[in-house]
């Protein structure tokens, strides 16, 4: 399918986002050449219409989570339920509720083929829930003691300035500095 300028229309895009676009239609989108240049703008528009709050979405980082511009000078992670998980430079998992499956019985609830379960002597399964809506946001299968994995840390300023030609108003090199350890340092003082 050649891009005729309009490209991928918004209604079909919404259906794709909702998991309702038939596979035959999805294949046409896969074959688009070139892809629609304004895809990201349309995406943000659709997502902004879906959420119930007004903060500007800068980036969607998972099914439920968004990096939003808060009060014009802060960038935080926010769940679509409205719960705020803090500075986006801190691994959002550290602001979740956590449940650890570290026994065969607990793993059996989610892996029902017994032979296919993990060796719980070596690894545990961690689940990270949104404290607001309790949606399961992330799953890790890691050895005990493994630092929670900071799955994605976007370089938002480069993205908006260099790739979208639309620089963000609050550009600052500090926005691309991982601050996770600052949060654990604060917690350590309470220990």
């Amino acid at each position, binding site marked *: 399918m050649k891009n005729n300028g309009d490209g991928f229309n918004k209604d079909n*895009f919404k259906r*794709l*986002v909702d998991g*309702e*676009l038939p596979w035959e239609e*999805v294949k046409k989108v*896969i074959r688009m050449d*070139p892809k629609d*240049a304004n*895809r990201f703008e349309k995406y*943000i528009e659709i997502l902004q219409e879906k959420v119930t709050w007004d903060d500007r979405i800068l*980036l969607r*980082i*998972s*099914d*439920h989570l968004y990096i939003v511009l808060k009060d014009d000078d802060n960038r935080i992670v926010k769940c679509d339920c409205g719960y705020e998980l803090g500075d986006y430079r801190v691994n959002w998992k*550290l602001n979740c*509720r*956590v*449940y650890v499956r570290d026994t065969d019985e607990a793993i059996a*609830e*989610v892996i*029902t083929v017994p*032979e*296919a*379960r*993990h*060796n719980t002597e*070596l*690894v545990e399964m961690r689940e990270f*829930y949104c*404290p607001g809506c*309790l*949606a*399961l*946001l*992330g*799953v890790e*299968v*890691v*050895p*005990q*003691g493994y*630092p*929670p*994995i900071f799955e*994605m*840390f*976007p*370089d938002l300023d480069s*993205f908006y300035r*260099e*790739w979208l030609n639309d620089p963000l108003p609050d550009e600052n090199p500090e926005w*691309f500095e991982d601050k996770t*350890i600052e949060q*654990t*340092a604060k*917690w*350590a003082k309470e*220990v």
Partner: protein
Amino acid sequence: MGICIQGSTLKEIVAERERLFAETGCAYGLKKLELVEKDPAKFMRFQMRLVASCINSRESAKLISANPMSMVQGELLFMLANAEGDVISASYGLAGHIQCMPFIIKNIAELDFEDNPGIEKGDIFSCNDPMYGPPHNADCYTWMPVFYEGELVSWTVGLNHIVDVGGIQPGGLGVVSPNIFTDGFTYPPTKTGANFKQHKWWELHWKRRTRTEMFNVLDDKMRAAGITSLHDRILEIIDEFGVDYYRQGMKEIIERERRILVERIKSQAVPGKYRYLQLSAVNYKGTLGKLWPNSNRNWLIHKTGELNIRPDGTLLTDLEGLTSEGEFHANAYEPAVRMLTSLGMWPMFAYTETINSSLLYMTDWNIPPGSMFNPQNPYAGTVMGLGVIAGYIFLFHNCLSQAFFSRGFLEETFPADGTAGGYGAAGTLEDGFQWAGGDMSLITCQSQAGNPFHDGFDSSVCSPNPASDIGETEVVEFLLPTQVHLGKKLIPDYCGHGKFRGGLGIGTLQMVNKPGRSLILNAFAATDSMGACAMGRNGGYPGANDIVVFVNDTNIREIIEKESDYPRDFVEIREWMEEGKLTAGDVQIYKGPTPSIPCRDGDLFAIAAGSKGGWGDALERKYELIENDIELDWITRETSKTVYGVIVNDEGKVDKDASDQLRKEMFEKRLERSMDAKDWWKQERDKVLEKGWHEDVKNMYADCLKYNKFKNEFFGMWQLPDDYRIPGYKEE
């Protein structure tokens, strides 16, 4: 006087290629694509002629091979490289090997092959030694120079995965080998033929140093025939287009496609850092005994990675924190890493008019010296480093899927997990005939993981291998005469669950049939009981573990004689045994590599792999998808209830009210049994300070903390005192 253009030496033109790229950022310093711009139609015709020639060579040559992996599973490739070693075009097949050829040519240039043994028209060169470019010794390269008017203009290259490498275990995928001397037949770059023919002595090496002489000799002839025919086709193309056009056109292909790849990343991804982790294991403890004391231990392999999508559209993959090199089979070198991981890049963004070396010009790697993919011991075992590298294919699938998802290109997401199963076999039949072989069918024919808008398709793709087809069972049975398939099927519930679940894993069950004097099987299950990935996607669960089951002393022959059906996979083995219908002297379940297992007539051997992860929260899965799962027997009623919170009635319909209520209770349960991250962190930190972990975990941390990046992350996360230390292997 060199053999290359205007008397340059091979070493000089390879160095010049690197200088031009370093100084300009463009392949061969090409700021302008003159041939492309002047006549794009002619250029396309030129490029397609090169591709067609490679495919033609592959399709003709493979009929010479007797190796099922080449004939029916696509484990071969024919390539055309320019004089500098960049692959310009290739057949379909084992596409990743394009990444290795530039390293091989650079190595023979630096070894002064031009002076000794010399590089002349009709010469044939061979190599499978990973130190010089090939990824492991099962992947055998054969190549030939193409001269035009006395100057080297190209190389034609053939490659395939052979059945047996002559290592301490049968097959080409050994999972025990402490060093290069136990890896099997490994040859550095060697001139093995002249005047378009292999030397006779070369054939003797295959006969004396590997178990499957017939397959391997024929495979060698296949590669030599393919590169010779490609050589002749290329000379015709040069005659048609002119040698200047030919030389310049090859360079423009690389530069044009480098630009396409960079542009694709910039237009579909989001710059930033993306993390990846997969775990696996090498379990030698108790297997190697006193003969190799440094190998008589287990390793938990830490496959960490960070994909940096840089603002200029290029990629840097940082492996700092990867497990250190060891006296095991799983070390590797940079070409192997680039080779196999490119199989995650082709489908995600690196698809162009042809597959070629352009990826090398926009991907960088940090592989710390001393890590298992940059070993400093020249005798490091590498026979199955690819088994560990394979996990990194999925770094690209998963990290780029995340990036494309964030950018709004949901249709381009293609997450995947690293799963695989396979086995090698060797035996002596009753009449004294010695044979060996291997089967990689469970590396192929894998399901897709769930993505943001639909479930993973079942048995639809194969990332580590280009042929998604599992191959013909009849061919496998013909070549592995003791292995009779009782079943090959998808296994219900065997997937990572999620709002969109992963596709189901596939399993086979074989009966050992008249093994004769002896039969040894050794198998592997790539996930090593630690899951298909350490990270689920967006709340989905990662794929479940690969499995190998051996059942000895069975009554299966009686069952086959008397019953109308019989078990077909490992789940059915369990069920038949629970019902008392199948009896067995012993059942051994492995979730990783197995030792060498002696087999007897009527033993059962089951293997299953390819369970892929889900996307999103399973409690958000739509009821109609569950009904479909139940109708097709993909998901059992029990699993729909315990994992998805969905009650299905006897008619296969969802009881909506009861399911709504059950899901409400499951959400409440999440609240009840979870804790605030801060409290969990305090609890976990205490455990880190106590270090009361399994010794394999402790050894893994002790090793990875030698690398600053992981050390900073670990110490920072748990706020550890400076004098915190985890004793390493045998340090306690």
